């Protein structure tokens, strides 16, 4: 791919700057009632210890908060801080007081390992693969590095699960701490949900209203190809049953800024983390966390293609009656036969609606040439092929779809238990199967047990996912960020999506390197620079065009 060339990626298909965020469910069975923020901090801490072993000088770096703007609304205004929910203030570092820290850590360990130079507990890391690992309220969260295509989105999202696994293993090996389990799911079935978000870079010139109109019908129905499945209905799971989506019952409005209350189908948070007059970062909060690689791939690939349709003004002209109710109706209908009412009076199924989007996306991609199997962009063809095959299977061969579509794979396992043991949906064992499906340990996680038996499809091989734990993507600015952290970790005092901050010994002040163009800082553009310099000082001098030693 020539994706590293500034000026853009091939337009019209599935290529786009994108990334994922996963908040893991966290649970210490032997320490019920343990503080979730403390446990999450332990997870980050444990991974810091893992990376310290891996890289002399430490591969962890503090997060730089100066460009976080969580209250900027894409509709054109900024929420007053006093009116914001505490959870919306994501631009402030979380603070742990001394008592809380002492509860979570032995004093000795804290002094040996748990504090950085300024005496604060490490709650936030930038990883050598370009990702961010941090405590988000009461969950550990992995935010993947920016990638340019859905296949890489799957690889670097799955790498996050291995990062989380390494932390879990480290904690399990410590006899002084209770073992901590992490779950890649989105609800505890007791009215709490936590997110798995996607981010897509878009030109700012696309009117936000077009995005809302074009995406809403797609998001109401996208769950049929990438929902993760859930045992339990309603937010608190009190009504027995099985539904397609982990998240659907937690959405209450169509458009909005919040992500923790009154969750909207379209989220308007407008933090581009890039040149703000050129780009917007579309923050998608409606998806389920996916372990199934095929579901994750389709989630990113189909959405990227629908955004290409919207940018070209070619989104299907469809309006769904009462989208929030429709979203939940789709999730609750595992037969896929219920119909949605459109504002023009038609009634169509969720699959029909997905086919309408598929056909529009396929036509646009073929018209722009990116869908060609040989001369296309190398990604769009694969997305279209899998998208159409999945929709076809969902309509006529559900058994075949169970090796790729996550909610069907889980349902098939649950049906096995229901038949063998005569269980109804309210039985605790089915709830446990749902929960343990998402345990990230391969020996305990039921998704991984199916994967080991080749009952789930692999799109990215294990070696590539393992590489993505330490290697950044080559074709975005994540390459620069990740390499700076792993090469010059001792001299990097902070990093964020759009900057890396150096504190080089002998220099009077901090040096902040802005990285506001997501498709610069690639291996093609900066690989030579990293090859020429082993030390941060001369590296920075050449990068910034300074006289040597300045």
């Amino acid at each position: 791919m020539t994706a590293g060339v500034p000026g853009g990626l091939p337009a019209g298909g599935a290529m786009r700057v994108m990334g994922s965020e996963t908040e893991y469910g966290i649970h210490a069975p032997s320490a019920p009632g343990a503080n979730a923020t403390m446990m999450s901090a332990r997870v980050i801490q444990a991974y810091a210890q893992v990376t310290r072993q891996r890289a002399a000088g430490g591969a962890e770096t503090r997060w730089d908060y100066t460009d976080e703007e969580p209250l900027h609304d894409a509709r054109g205004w900024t929420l007053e801080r006093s009116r914001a929910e505490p959870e919306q203030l994501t631009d402030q570092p979380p603070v742990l007081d001394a008592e809380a820290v002492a509860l979570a850590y032995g004093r000795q360990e804290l002094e040996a390992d748990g504090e950085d130079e300024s005496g604060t507990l490490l709650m936030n890391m930038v990883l050598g693969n370009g990702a961010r690992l941090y405590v988000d309220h009461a969950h550990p969260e992995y935010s993947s590095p920016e990638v340019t295509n859905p296949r890489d989105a799957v690889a670097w999202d799955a790498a996050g699960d291995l990062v989380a696994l390494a932390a879990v293993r480290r904690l399990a090996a410590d006899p002084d701490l209770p073992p901590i389990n992490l779950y890649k799911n989105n609800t505890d079935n007791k009215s709490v949900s936590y997110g798995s978000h996607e981010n897509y870079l878009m030109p700012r010139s696309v009117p936000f209203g077009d995005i809302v109109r074009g995406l809403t019908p797609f998001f109401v129905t996208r769950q049929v190809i990438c929902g993760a499945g859930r045992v339990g209905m309603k937010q608190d799971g009190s009504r027995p049953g099985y539904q397609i989506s982990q998240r659907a019952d937690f959405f209450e409005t169509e458009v909005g800024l919040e992500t923790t209350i009154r969750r909207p189908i379209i989220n308007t948070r407008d933090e581009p983390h890039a040149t703000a007059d050129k780009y917007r970062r579309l923050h998608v909060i409606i998806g389920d966390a996916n372990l199934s690689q095929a579901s994750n791939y389709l989630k990113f690939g189909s959405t990227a293609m629908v955004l290409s349709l919207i940018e070209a003004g070619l989104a299907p002209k469809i309006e769904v009656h009462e989208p929030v109710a429709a979203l939940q109706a789709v999730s609750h209908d595992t037969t896929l036969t219920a119909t949605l009412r459109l504002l023009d009076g038609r009634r169509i199924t969720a699959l029909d609606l997905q086919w309408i989007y598929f056909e529009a996306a396929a036509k646009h991609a073929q018209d722009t040439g990116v869908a060609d199997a040989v001369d296309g962009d190398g990604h769009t063809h694969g997305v279209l092929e899998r998208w159409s095959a999945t929709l076809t299977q969902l309509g006529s061969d559900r058994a075949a779809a169970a090796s790729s579509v996550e909610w069907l794979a889980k349902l098939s396992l649950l049906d096995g238990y229901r038949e063998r043991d005569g269980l109804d949906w309210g039985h605790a064992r089915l709830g446990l199967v749902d929960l343990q499906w998402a345990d990230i340990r391969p020996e305990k996680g039921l998704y991984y047990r199916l994967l080991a038996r080749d009952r789930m499809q692999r799109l990215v091989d294990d070696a590539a996912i393992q590489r993505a734990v330490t290697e950044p993507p080559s074709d975005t600015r994540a390459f620069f960020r990740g390499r700076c952290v792993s090469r010059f970790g001792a001299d990097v005092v902070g990093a964020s999506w759009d900057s890396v901050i150096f504190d080089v010994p002998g220099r009077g002040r901090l040096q902040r390197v802005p990285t506001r163009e997501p498709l610069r800082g690639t291996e093609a553009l900066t690989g030579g620079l990293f090859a020429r310099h082993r030390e941060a000082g001369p590296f920075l001098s050449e990068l910034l065009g300074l006289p040597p030693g300045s």
Partner: protein
Amino acid sequence: MAGQEQQQPQSRDTEVDEDVPAAPPAPAEGQASAATQGVDDLLDEIDGVLESNAEEFVRAFVQKGGQ
């Protein structure tokens, strides 16, 4: 996806004509017993992996709010 790369993604109508095997949605009788055996093996394995005391374990999984 390997091995299928020369095949153009199909729109809905042609897909139904060309790609969907004539098999009924449910597995045929002969396939069913093999499939059932596979499911039984799988369930046996998972029985050994599931946390003990399902009810207590599920009840104790309580999360604080998230995004």
